[in-house]
């Protein structure tokens, strides 16, 4: 176990390094804009500014200073928790993240486990019944699922299930429920609608929230489960050819034990990596899906911020998603080392 601790520490050091690198790169991207353009970010009331006023802002905030100085300044601010002011939402970036994160979290909370467990199950079944109808069907379906544009699926689902059937509406909550959660009687313990509904003894809020979640979750699951099925299947097929599976059979173990105890655990190793990256991608992404369903999470915020040239918001979002990505990487690596004892020596 000492090996595991040393391994984790090594990975943590790398994490810091990569995060610094990513933030520097993101900052470099913003430097592509002229100083005058960037100056607008610091101005609350654009109308009152003219050429000289803008120049004053440029000087005041040191927007012509060398890269490392501006980066250092910005990094210092970030480390103190100040991510700037988001013009598109008229609140500090940090606040925007705080208020919008629960919505993205809700989607991922449902989508991620479904994707992972369905993916593993179908992948294993596919591998066991190789070239049977089950296998072909699941492969074709998963290829098709992976090929669909997420916004297209979202719009189609909305058409059928909202426009035609009116079962699952877009948006996070229906109007009545929204009023309910905004009222002062409603205590925000977790800021997550699903949980707060139960904690406030208002299960109808929870049910309503779930109802609004179904379409976005279905959209994401349809597309992402394909990848997991494919990786699980090929990993499982490869593992089933390994010598120790022959040994397991030679010991007289039942087929179920051979597949689920011996083969699957080894086959899960690459799948674990993929799942981690998937969850990271979901937490940091979902731009398109949230936009289509009008879900006020981090993704739609980032999308509108980018179009509205809300630089601090874009920067804040980029830093957040990079952080999530890197941390997820770390967790996956640790998980990997836990599952596969051989890795701990590296």
């Amino acid at each position, binding site marked *: 176990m000492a090996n595991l601790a040393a391994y984790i520490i090594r990975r943590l050091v*790398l994490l810091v*390094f*990569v*995060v610094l*690198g*990513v933030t520097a*790169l*993101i900052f470099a*991207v*913003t430097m*592509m*804009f002229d100083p005058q353009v960037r100056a607008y970010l610091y101005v609350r009331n654009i109308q009152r500014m003219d050429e000289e006023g803008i120049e004053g802002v440029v000087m005041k905030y040191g927007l012509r200073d060398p890269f490392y100085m501006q980066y250092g300044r910005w990094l210092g601010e970030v480390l103190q928790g100040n991510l700037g002011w988001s013009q598109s939402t008229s609140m500090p970036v940090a606040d925007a993240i705080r208020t919008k994160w629960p919505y993205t979290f809700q989607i991922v909370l449902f989508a991620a486990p479904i994707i992972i467990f369905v993916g593993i199950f179908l992948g294993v079944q596919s591998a066991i019944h190789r070239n049977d109808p089950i296998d*072909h069907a699941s*492969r*074709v379906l998963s*290829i*098709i699922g*992976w*090929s*669909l*544009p*997420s*916004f*297209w699926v979202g*719009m*189609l689902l*909305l*058409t059928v299930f*909202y*426009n*035609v059937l009116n079962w699952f509406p*877009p948006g996070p909550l229906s109007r009545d429920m929204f009023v309910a959660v905004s009222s002062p009687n409603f205590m925000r313990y977790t800021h997550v609608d699903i949980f707060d509904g139960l904690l406030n003894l208002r299960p109808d809020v929870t049910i309503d929230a779930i109802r609004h979640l179904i379409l976005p979750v279905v959209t994401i699951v349809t597309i992402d489960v394909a990848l997991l099925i*494919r990786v699980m299947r*090929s990993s499982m*097929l*490869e593992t089933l*050819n390994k010598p120790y599976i022959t040994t397991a059979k030679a010991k007289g173990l039942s087929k179920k034990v051979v597949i689920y105890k011996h083969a699957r655990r080894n086959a899960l190793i690459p799948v674990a990596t993929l799942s981690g990256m998937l969850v990271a991608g979901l937490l*940091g*992404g979902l*731009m*398109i899906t949230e*936009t*289509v369903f*009008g879900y006020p999470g981090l993704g739609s915020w*980032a*999308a509108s911020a*980018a*179009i509205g*040239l809300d630089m601090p918001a*874009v920067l804040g*979002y*980029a830093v957040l*998603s*990079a952080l999530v*990505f*890197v941390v997820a*990487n770390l967790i996956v690596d640790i998980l990997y080392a836990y599952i596969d004892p051989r890795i701990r020596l590296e």
Partner: protein
Amino acid sequence: MSLKNRWQEFKVGLTPRIKEWRFMLKRMRGSSLAMAGLIIILGYVAMAILAPVIAPPQSSDPFAIPLDKEIRVLQNEQPTPPTFRHIFGTTQYQFDLFYGCIWGSITAFRIGVFVVAISLLVGLLVGTASAYYGGILDETLMRFTDIIIAFPGLILAMALVLAWQQPTLEISISLSLVMISVMVSFVLIFVHPDRRLLAMNQLVLLLGLASSFFFPISISIPLNNLDKVLVAITIVGWPGYARVIRGEVLRIKNEDYVEASRASGSSDIRTIMHHILPNSIYPLLIVATLDIGSIVLSAAALSFIGIGAPEYYADWGQLISRSRFLISDPTLMVRNIHTFLIPGLFISTFVVGWNLLGDALRDVLDPMLRRR
């Protein structure tokens, strides 16, 4: 050696490669999924080639979707459903969907092929060098790719589109020579790394580099937003390829025949080109085939948000972007379903085709599952 003997030697060296390819094709023909994928792709190729015939362009820029000015006068905002004049109907602002979808296939190929080709080349170079030489070079390059992979590509795309004004692509003759020689050497790896051919190829490369000093002739091509997006996708895309090839090269580097090759005095380049790359390149091809689909999807998503192809441009994602107004008022969706259903079907089938092909390739080229 006489020319005839050289040719004989070349053919002999070619035989095992041809046998491999024949075997691969036979396996592919057996898989109905692979055939389906291939047929779909060929269908789109045909569509792309015949585009000027099926949907004649109505302005100097063939990628500008024609507007129906008559209807526009009457009802600009409302898309019209399919009629005789507009086979697939029109989008908001009266762009003809049929034209857009047909010419969109050319755009899709352009998106997929260019991005993948360049990402692949860059990734190949970086990944192979990193894996082969190892040490500090490997560590730094890998940290660098780690950083790029952690970087949200969408942001870069947005930034490039917004900040990069009036980009143009300057193609110089000399640069073309360089690139042509690089691609030729790529082909040679597969076919037959003949020393003399490689030497000739290197000569062309030097010629290109030299002429860049003496004859800097170039052609300027203006780039639009879509191209900026493609550049962004390429920048964040190549590390994926680098990682894949690096994994393969690391695996093969320790094989006995590589050691034998180096022990018998082959230069690094020769060992890489002749022994390592032909055995390690297959997973990269699989990733490339699958990536074409992914990239078309990413570009479509960006166009959908509004970053990407300009409003009038024949691009499938852009066409669907015209239906974004439906999101604010979903009750109109059924009536206008053709505005996003049809372009979406084009995108989906295109990507399905490439994914089927890539999946089949993966099955065929998997050394463990072959020959059973």
